[in-house]
């Protein structure tokens, strides 16, 4: 999976980090100190469809059916997350209790073309 530089053309992962102190959220979020809200962007030309691994998505299924039946469509494949991981958080709720949870699918690790 590619990591996006400044000029984006082909499907890649764009790093984006929010520090909770910068948005005045550090008083209620105890840990971690920030959130990696990485996202996917870039083109998926026909040649790259399905690379670097098939994105298990409804779109991928439909797309491969169209290709398998030789239907030449204008559908192009999309740049989507293909690997994600949870974000473990410890925070205060409005009752001033501490809550710890693992929020699934919060951090995009890599991107691919459907």
């Amino acid at each position: 999976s590619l990591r996006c530089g400044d000029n984006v053309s082909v499907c890649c992962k764009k790093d984006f980090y929010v520090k909770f102190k910068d948005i005045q959220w550090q008083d209620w979020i105890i840990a971690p100190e920030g959130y990696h809200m990485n996202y996917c962007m870039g083109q998926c030309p026909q040649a790259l469809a399905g690379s670097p691994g098939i994105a298990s998505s409804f779109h991928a299924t439909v797309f491969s059916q169209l290709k398998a039946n030789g239907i030449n469509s204008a559908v192009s494949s999309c740049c989507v997350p293909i690997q994600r991981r949870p974000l473990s958080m410890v925070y205060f709720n409005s009752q001033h209790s501490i809550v710890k949870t693992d929020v699934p699918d919060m951090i995009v690790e890599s991107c691919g073309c459907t």
Partner: protein
Amino acid sequence: AGTTPGCASCGMPLMEKDSEQRLLVEIAKQQILNKLHLKERPNITSTVPRAALLTALRKLHKGRVRPDGTIELENKIKETKDPGYEIVSFAEMDEMNTTTGTPSGLTFQFLQERDHSIQVLQSALWLYVHSSDTPNRGPRPTATAHIYLSGSGEGSSNRTVLLEKILDAQQSNWHTFPITHTLQAFMDGGKRRLQLEVTCKEAGSEPGQGQNLCELGKSMDMAHQPFVVAQVRLRDDSKHILQRR
């Protein structure tokens, strides 16, 4: 071929750097609030003393506290389907009646999610018990702790004994009291305030005499504030109902 002006995926014209940054920060905020089932960020009006916070987090199942006081969270390697929550609720304390030594009340507040029923997997009350300072030449000093569930409703004086435990009073230390079933019944009742009463009487003292070794009441060292740790999960049946519809 080459870079196309504007968004590489959707072709929208490029945004100003600042406005793109602001937009992405707003999206990040919204995503975190959605995933935590919060409509808005909690309003923290009073801070929990750092000492109490660090004590509680040290006791929390998986969290570890680094020497510099920052929190180390265990990185999840395997995705769990329903990670659930771990909750630490600090006690609000009534003032203890030191002359009569009557039991002192601890109140814990739990936020109940409106359309989710909660399954308590494990829960314990943590209490800091002082060592006995009466001279004792005999065997190891002990104390007997009684945990009561206070009656519901204003002014109700009835209470239910939840558990009784013999504690080692040789040294001051934290002690845990399992209250999993009590907390489950409380959650099932849909209430918000769990009220407990606690006494820790020195062994061998006459009824009504002897020190209460549990450190309770407003004058206590905040690092020893009692708290409840609970491991909870959204109950499966509520998901099942959803599927049936």
